[in-house]
């Protein structure tokens, strides 16, 4: 059992930047305890290292079992899932573990952010399914693409995404690629590709590949982006040539 210090960024509400502050808490950590464990512990006894009783730190967590994407945050400046980050392994050489909310989604309170901007981007990329079922024979090879939980790690890590940028982001692009693979008709594939040829689409990718590094599900995001690049280029060329 070891004492671990956490320094947590707090803010009381979306329109209250004057309340932005850091508070420090100490928890006693067992080997299997994660950052999520610590946040639950602090929730039950929200007393800072200065002995001040404060309101509990607001955070998102759902399955607590490394699979739902709810608890993504910034840990020591890097995007991580709180439930997969083990306290004893995350301690820096000096100082506390620092927790901050995701920086590109609207803040609700403390570590909680609002995710509707991601949904709008999915709509923009036409990452939805309508119409009759497809009929493709076996899709087991697509399983690796079909795992995204919307955790927003790639959105955070990507240098091209942001609240002021229309870029749909790596996850939306991957969904578009998956759905094009499953698409029943050429019309459907092409309308999706055309959506990705509009502002905020595929050309906004800067090929930094930070998305692949942070995806907790190991989805081949960059491979999806490359495939879509090739598909959109082909479509552009054939429309240029009047086909």
């Amino acid at each position, binding site marked *: 059992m070891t004492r671990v210090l956490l320094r947590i960024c707090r803010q009381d509400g979306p329109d209250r930047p004057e309340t932005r502050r850091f508070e420090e808490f100490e928890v006693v950590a067992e080997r299997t305890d994660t950052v999520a464990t610590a946040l639950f512990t602090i929730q039950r006894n929200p007393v800072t290292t200065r002995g001040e009783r404060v309101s*509990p730190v607001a955070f998102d967590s759902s399955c607590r079992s490394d*699979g*739902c994407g709810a608890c993504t945050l910034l840990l020591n400046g890097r995007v991580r899932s709180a439930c997969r980050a*083990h306290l004893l392994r995350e301690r820096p050489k000096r100082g506390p573990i620092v927790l901050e909310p995701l920086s590109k989604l609207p803040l609700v309170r403390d570590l909680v952010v609002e995710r509707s901007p991601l949904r709008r981007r999915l709509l923009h990329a036409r990452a939805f*399914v*309508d119409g009759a079922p497809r009929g493709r024979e076996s899709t087991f*090879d697509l399983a690796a693409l079909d795992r995204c939980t919307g955790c927003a790690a790639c959105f955070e890590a990507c240098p091209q995404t942001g609240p002021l940028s229309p870029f749909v982001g790596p996850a939306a692009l991957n969904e578009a690629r998956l*759905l094009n693979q499953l698409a029943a008709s050429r019309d459907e594939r092409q309308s999706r590709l055309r959506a990705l040829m509009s502002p905020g689409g595929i050309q906004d990718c800067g090929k930094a590949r930070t998305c692949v590094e942070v995806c907790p599900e190991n989805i081949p995001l960059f491979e999806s982006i490359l495939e879509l690049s090739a598909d959109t280029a082909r479509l552009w060329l054939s429309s240029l040539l009047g086909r």
Partner: protein
Amino acid sequence: MAKVESKRRPTVVVGEGIAGQATALALCEAGVPVLLLARSGSEQSESAARGDGIDAALDRDDSPERHTEDLLASAAGFANGSALAALAEGAPALFERLRRDGIPFESSRSGSPHLEKMPGSTVARTAHAGALTARHISRRLAQRLLAFEGAGLLERHVGWQLCDLVQRPDLAVVGVVAREQSTGQVNALRADGVCLATGGHTGLFAAETFAPPSLGAATGVAFRCGARLADPDRVHESPLGYHAGGFLRALPERLLALGGSVEAGLLDLTALDRAALRRASASALSAHRAHTGLDAYSEPIAVVDVPTRTLGGLWVDFDESGTDAARCHRTSLPGLYAAGGACAAYFGARLSPGTPLAAALFGGARAGRALGAYREALESSAFDLPTEVFDAARERVRARIEALLSESTEDHPSPFELEQALRQAVAQAMTSEEPNTDDALGALADRLSEARSGDANACANAGIATLMELHQVLPLARAVLAAHATRVSAGSKPFLFALDEERGPFLAEAPA
């Protein structure tokens, strides 16, 4: 606030797990406007996180009749026989639709689905898409619902907690009151039909340290509003639980079907084919390793019993004759339907691991159709009722919450401590020889009346959310213990419970 034109007369679906998604999808596909409310999104649902597969009579040696026989044998007198028969009948078509929607089911070399024989089945009947069958299905449903959202038929509000049902004097449900967790705003929504797809109440049985699966708060709300409960004390336990990081997790039961054995509290997978193991549960086993440092592929690992699903819940009707579509999944309250883990139609005494996913999809679709039929046949709409009804309902909830908001202090019991105390009280009463309901929960109820949120900021306030849940769940917890006590003395058969404000839960007759 929901921007709803009264002539649309939407239905409300609460819960975005697989059953809620299936219900909403059936409604949208029938052109019925839907307001979908959920505490959290589908990616965070319990149903999407499970590692189980889906049962369907696809094998050459199988048939819907044989599937029905197995389901009835497992049910041992519990659950609804005609619902089970309809489920077995409908499962192959359901599977086919999923397959054609690109769910990556494992298939044999010939291309036919790879099926496994699980406990509760007399033949190989369970299909899996690796370890993430439910996640793949949930994602595809979400992708279909996104299209309807874009088209304006579905209005989706995530991060809303159900607070109450709005009822007419004849108890028919005409709307809901829900709280937006990010702002604290309380909203009353009219609805021409409501479906609760809010999950079971496994959390009541999980005596673990931190945040359990759903406590069943929405079931508690419905119970308090007059809906009957069926066998709320029944729960399915998996032998494959393990502790890590303050939580109790469960490995997929498929590991047992693949040949894993549990003896003296140890699960031994070492003799199994590694490739098959990886395909079946790579993510669950690597999570286990990340948390415990143990390699389940090469050494036996410690496991404990863990409750994974409730088998009872809201009583719902089913239509054997096929002539009254509005009957399916209707609770004992007119206008209120329930699907998935929240309802008690499909789960009997024992459970084949592949049944719940099939039941969520099949039941959700039936509930959606029923809700549409109910709305179609309505003589007077919720949207014609005076606004005072909804304003009053909203104001009652708002005032209740206002009274609970307070700063963090040592004086009042913490909602989170009380949640744990509730689970411990239920666990204790369930295992004791002489269950004494009043003792166990009476003390808790007193502490609950003293409790406050421990956080005066209405925004993203987990204390208020938990406190509200506890108030909603208490009558359900009482019913669980009453059912358990009844079962201890009267034996293993189905019971229905209703709630009286003064005397608490009591044994009730089936609705006419």
